[in-house]
């Protein structure tokens, strides 16, 4: 464990250093991210200017859910970004070999190398949206709620990571799976809205098959309404654990079919 932290330290400091070095890139990225978020909120605002509520949900509640969904996404982006690269080019170029010559678990190795400072933006915006809507919602948040929140977030984040792990490991067989990861990742967009707006098929998919609904809507709705803690919170923890176990299993299974690339 301590070893992990020491390894991490190097990459964290490097990520921060390169941030300073590539100021322009970072700024354009940051600005575009902010504009993106603003446009998303603007969209919600415009809709709500014409309707009293969205099938029972008010503007602030929807923004809360949206902000909430950014946090696990950001956390996963912060800590597991390398998985994209595995799918896009690391396996294809043969660079993956070196992971196999090191005395550490390959998955762990890929993960500790990735520290994406950019992701802090998602976390900050997410938290800011939560904080700003909490006031106008009139919901009382207790210390227990805070603890539950801190506990549930890593589980929700791990759902993203598990999905990335699964589709990245496809690259072991097909050499490239970046675009597959991309499409499945985009399904997460469904998670920032209440699942009730979707038809049954989609609801089933985003709840049980590619369970992104547990990264945003379900846990967030618990904190808003206090309803169904077993499903909303317990479900998140359960699904996240099952998915992560599956992901690790698939990663190692696919790794065995790895045939390296080039000579």
């Amino acid at each position, binding site marked *: 464990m301590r070893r992990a932290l020491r390894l991490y330290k190097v990459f964290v400091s490097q990520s921060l250093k390169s941030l300073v070095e590539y100021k322009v*890139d970072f700024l*354009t*990225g940051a600005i*575009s991210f902010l*504009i993106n978020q603003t446009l998303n909120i603007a969209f919600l605002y415009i*809709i709500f200017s014409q309707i009293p509520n969205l099938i029972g949900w008010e503007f602030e509640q929807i923004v809360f859910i949206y902000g909430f969904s950014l946090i696990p996404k950001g956390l996963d982006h912060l800590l597991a970004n390398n998985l994209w690269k595995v799918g896009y080019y690391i396996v294809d170029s043969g660079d993956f070999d070196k992971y196999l010559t090191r005395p550490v678990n390959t998955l762990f190795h890929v993960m500790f190398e990735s520290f994406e400072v950019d992701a802090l933006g998602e976390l900050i915006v997410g938290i800011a949206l939560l904080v700003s809507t909490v006031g106008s919602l009139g919901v009382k948040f207790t210390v227990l709620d805070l603890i539950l929140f801190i506990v549930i977030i890593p589980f929700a984040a791990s759902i993203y990571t598990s999905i990335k792990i699964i589709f990245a490991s496809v690259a072991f067989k097909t050499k490239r799976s970046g675009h597959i990861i991309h*499409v499945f990742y985009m399904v997460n967009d469904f998670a920032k*809205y209440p699942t009730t707006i*979707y038809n049954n098929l989609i609801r089933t998919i985003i709840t049980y098959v590619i369970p992104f609904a547990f990264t945003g809507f379900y846990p967030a709705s618990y904190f808003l309404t206090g309803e169904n803690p077993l499903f909303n919170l317990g479900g998140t923890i359960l699904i996240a654990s099952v998915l992560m176990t599956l992901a690790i299993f698939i990663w190692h299974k696919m790794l065995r079919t790895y045939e390296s690339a080039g000579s």
Partner: protein
Amino acid sequence: MRNSLKIYKPFTLTGIQEFMIYKANFLFFIGGEILFCFITFFVWKAVFNSSSSDSFMGFTMTNMVVYLFMTYLSSILTSSDAAYAIGEEIVSGSIAMRLIKPVNYDVSFLFQEIGNKIIITSIMLIPVIFGIEVYKFIVSGEIQFQWIHFLTYFLSIMLGYIISFYFNICFGFLAFYLKNLWGANMLKESIIRFLSGAIIPIAFLPQTMGNILNLMPFASLTYTPVMIYMGTYNISETIFFLGLQVFWIIVFFGLSKLIWSAAIKKLCVQGG
């Protein structure tokens, strides 16, 4: 003229072949786009259900569906990879390979992508429009389709594509100045998506904002063609907006030439 067109034909053939090779990529691309389309569809459905009346700012639900899916089709037809492709060539240095060929840099790209677009259009245009019309017919008993609208739509789409191409070229040349286009690309994508009406029809926006956006190039990409298809514009408006598209083509074409001459000097300085 005929001779110079002949030079570019091989580029178009390359474009077609490239499509065959990267068809998986294409499938995933439209897959991703359709996901987005469906999410927006469901959100709007919920909006309509929560609204007290049958229509929302002048649109009925059926209109909205037609609008959304036409926008989806149009954004795929007018999308251009030029920025990405140029950025890649600049970063990898293979731009040198294209420069030594006796062709116009941007035109060669254009013809290559046209090859791509020909295939995409033949695959998608008829099925999507057919699907939309069937939906509309089932729900409301009438169809949207009218020949004059469709043909004008097709013209407008072609104009929209050329705007998109030259706009992307200008953007791609930014790679000469910024090492990593990733952040700027995200910005471009989200701005275009929003301002071209993909998420919200421009008609929904407050009056002044809507008027400004209508005049901006992004609306000319997909909003104008879709509005034409849906018959929202009368004849004078149609002519105006088509003319606006032509205007933007000229603007971005000129801009790309300017940036090109500035950038090519920089390239020569950096090379060797």
